[in-house]
């Protein structure tokens, strides 16, 4: 399981944030925000060369305690997953499929006519789905 899932809008403001341990939320938010530096750099330099259909950015930060993965949609919506470093069960492939699931539920959510684009996601059903992806129960 991952310990945190975040969705960042194209203006780099948080649209959705969920983590397994609410006490750690502030700290994780700082880390997720910091990892945007790496995403920005990757988007600025690498995107022209690499295949733009590849949305998965791989590991952004590998810290002693956490590993942070990133994924960017074509509309510059960033998905970020934070995993505990000690968790070896999750490899790139698993992370990739988690991102795909998040992308699909995100797409479903913004199709909701009551969602205002650019506003944080508050939908309960989205939250339920996202947390179950985070906990790996899907």
């Amino acid at each position: 399981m991952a310990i945190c899932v975040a969705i960042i809008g194209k203006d780099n403001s948080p649209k959705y944030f969920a983590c397994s341990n609410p006490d750690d939320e502030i700290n994780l938010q700082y880390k997720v925000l910091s990892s945007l530096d790496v995403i920005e750099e990757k988007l600025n330099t690498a995107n022209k060369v690499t295949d733009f259909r590849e949305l998965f950015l791989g590991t952004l930060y590998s810290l002693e305690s956490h590993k942070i993965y990133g994924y960017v949609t074509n509309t510059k919506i960033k998905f970020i997953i934070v995993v505990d470093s000690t968790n070896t069960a999750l490899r790139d492939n698993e992370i990739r499929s988690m991102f795909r699931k998040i992308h699909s539920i995100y797409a479903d959510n913004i199709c909701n006519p009551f969602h205002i684009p650019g506003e944080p996601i508050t939908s309960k059903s989205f939250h339920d789905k996202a947390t179950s992806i985070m906990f790996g129960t899907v």
Partner: protein
Amino acid sequence: MQNVIPDQHAFPPELCAKPLSLVGISGLDTRNNATHKSIWDVFGNTKTDVSGLNYKLIDNAYEFPVVKPKRNSYEWYIPKGILKKNWMEKHLNKIPAVMVIFYDLDWNDPQWNEKMIECASRVQSIRVALEGRNTKLSVVLIQNHSVNPGDDDSHQTERVNALCTSCELNPNSLFVLPHGDHLQGYATRLAGAFNDLAQNYYHTEIRNVKSHREHLQKQTHQYLFVRHQFKMGFLSELKQDLHGAHKHYTHAYNNLLEIRIVDTNAMEIRTVAGFINYKLCRLMFSLNLPRDAISQFKAHTERFKTRYGFQELSFEHHAWMALQNQVFGDIFDEAVKLGLPAVQTQHPGLYYQQAVHHATLRKKACEDLCKGSNVYPLPDPLEGIATMDFYGQRPWRPGKMTSDPPDPQVEWNGIKALQFLENQVNHSIIIITLYGLAVAQFKTYRCPRTRRFLVVQMADEYYNSGDYGKALTLFSHMLWDYRSECWWSLLSHILYKALQCAFLTARIDDYVIFTLELLGSKSTLPKSQKLQIFENLNSVFRKQCPEAIVILPEIKKSRVLWKNLLGEAPQTYKLEMNNIVSCLDCKVRFQEEKYQVDGLVIIEILVRNSSDFQITLLGISISLENYVKNTEICVETTTNQDFCFAAGQVKRFIIEYKPNPADINKELEISSVHLYLGHMQNPLFDLQFNGLGNDIKSIPMELVHFRNCESIDFDNIKALLKCSVVPRHSKLAMHFEHAKPALVGEWYKIRINLADSRDYQVNNLIFEISLQDDDVSDTTEFKQMSLDNELEKLPIKVSLGDISPSDQCVTVLYMRAFTTGERNLQVNVSFNLHNDDLIPSSMEEFIHVSVVKPFDFSTKILTTHFEELIKHYVDETFVIMPIINCLSPWPLVIENTELDYHDNVHNEDVSISSQLIGCEVSNGETASEIYMANTSKVSDSPILIGNYTIHWKRANGESTITKIPINGLIVDFIPLDLSVSLPAYGLVRTPLLVEYQLKNKSHHLIQLDVSVEGSEAFMFAGHKQFQTTILPGDRRKLKYNLYPLIAGSVSLPRLVLSVPENSTDGPSLRQEHLNSLLHRSLPTHIYVMPQMKGQPELTNVIKRCEMINLN
């Protein structure tokens, strides 16, 4: 009791110094001898990086370290530690690899022998001092006279040999330094030679160390394996052999890892591992192996991460880890400065960040472990720490082997002492310094957000260390970025801390701003905390010290500060609210973009309280800026309740402002909006907004409509901070009377009527008329009022002065255009409305006039038989037919036409008068008339017949004269002239007379064959065929009696003229000339009427007698 001990965690300087081969220099008296001084300066200033040599001046009093007795067997030797503290220092700075003896001696010195002996004795004394060492000796002779190579070679060689022998010196180690111009160059060459000797020396030393290895045993001499490899590595470094050094250090590191770690040696192994790792990483960066360096470092920290050693001293472990990271960051940074490229994901900052992490852990461990250690134990267990033999050993347990059981009491005392010392350390400074290093690196590697996070942590550390002022500054600098990226929970987190800092430092303005922002809807603070800070805010308004949120020892101090602050004279604090997402938000707009000067400018102010509490303002005002001054206008209210905002309430206020006539065509701008909070007598807070609302990153307008909105839709109102004041728009009605289109050349009449529904007198009414396009101004003329006036220049100003309400105002404008196309006239009317004041007003109108041609004009030139003419012939009559084809949509009246003949063209009419006078033509109709004329001169180019003048007008229009030139054809000459006289008609069976007259216009004789062809319609009498001769200037008449047989338009008998074949006359008259003459001069047909009743009168019949005569 405070023992001054070096920070035991820091690396010793001898480890960090770059190892350079040590070259001892003796015999230079730098103090008294200028020559020696200059030599020493040259050597001493050589860049060590280049030469790899470290020169050391050694005087006679210098004592070299004593040589230890050689050990023959290691069998009973048990090492007491891994690395001796003095060893590196000894080889770096004390034992020279090369000892250079400088001596002043010229080859041809007069006292050669004595000096040679003195030199030898000096060499000898040094040799004795270095007994047992392998240090190379070398002698440099300082010579004042440079020696020419060819000069007395044998003598020199002899002396060299003598000197070498007496000094017992290899001739290769004897050098000569001519003291003269090229000292630097000689020094460089000498340095090369010294370097060779030094390399040689260190090579021997390494082999010496290596030779010990065979005596060692795995079990007992594990420490020595490490020590020897380390020594070899270090000596290789001194030798400048980096690859060798890398190899030996790697072995040393691996040997070290084989040693079993127990509590007693953990510290020592860790220390030495740190040293070797440091050396290794640094070497790898120098060898351009940054990846290897990083992986070595990672493996190193990974390996030692969990080796805590004593639990009671775990802070030591963290300190060590922090040091490892910091030092790695340093050498990484050093490598980057030397050109190593680093990337965003791998740069020194990451290691400084890691160092911070460990430094923080160290601090925490210290707080946990050293709380009670306020007493330094006696006797001092750390005594002699500075003089320890080995690195990383405990002073209370020096040189003990791991097998010895430690004395628990001594151990305990030692730990206590260390804990006591640790307690004295200012961890915050260490942590903040490391943060500073990391922040600088992250800035370089484009990680603005990570950098911000680090700064926030740094501020936290300042806060923890009690430096609230600095913490506040850092926090407040970071707020903006978090706000702009809408990370509200982080923002609230930082704000809350900043609020505490502001409280503790009694910064009332910051305190209020932070509170206002924290009370806003974006803040993620729980409601209870919001309530608390709201109440604190109210206490500030009531001049009371706010309650502390967190209990800290500094509270008392800050209470005093607050008391002093609030006790001072009432103050107004100006708070800049522009970039802040505060709970009070305000938007302001002009209701329109343009206001007329006589109306009221209406400014709408919307204020929203997005907090959960009721907030009462003292007042609202705006600063209105026109081009010169700033006016502050307050909102006026009837009751105080108007300024009381319930939770989430939006209120609208209106300000009316009467613009000044001086504001016309200027902009009005709302420069700021002020909301006043607090108490009139107490501190007053002037919150300054820019009036745009604080939705920094608002989502697009269209989408906002989907939000739930309050009664006043605050979000959807767009702020408008600027408006312009325009002159009063006239209520006058301006009418233009004119009949479009205008015709080219005519005076086109435009009547401008000002009809008005106004109630006031108008002063100083001025029309200003101008053409919009400059390019047609040349072909357009204007007159005003009457055609008798002079032409006007553009722009035309018509001043009508003052007009009372009942007056009608008319002005007439005439325009004449000479080309077709559009004419756009701009009419500006300006006047002062005489109301209570004089109000300048204006209006602007456009007149679009298209100009078209009134008619098309063409001319036909015809023969007298109305056939097209190709050429004129001298003295032959032709017909001019001007044709006027009306194109104007309005009927045109042709008043008169005239044709003025040019010279050489002569009128043939009896009297000239226009046939078109009074003729009216409508669109599509054509008017034409004819004129008869002849010409008297031959011309090869088309002649100008004359000017045709048309006087025309449109019905009830102004009369216009159009002059058009009429062009003719070329004029030719033929000598023969032919005319015919024929009655207008004939009658059947009634003879009629035809008389042809031939005239010779030339000075030559003309001979012609004349014949008349028969016709079925006629019988005729006269010569049918004959030859005739016409004398110059003479005429010949041919008369025929025709007797018509049938009625109708019948063809006449054809007259044929031809030039006789045997004509003596030249080519002046050719057949085709004759044919064309016949064609244009003679009618081909005649009308013949039916026979009249009774006897017709035959007037013009040739009499019989004449016929006879002819014959």
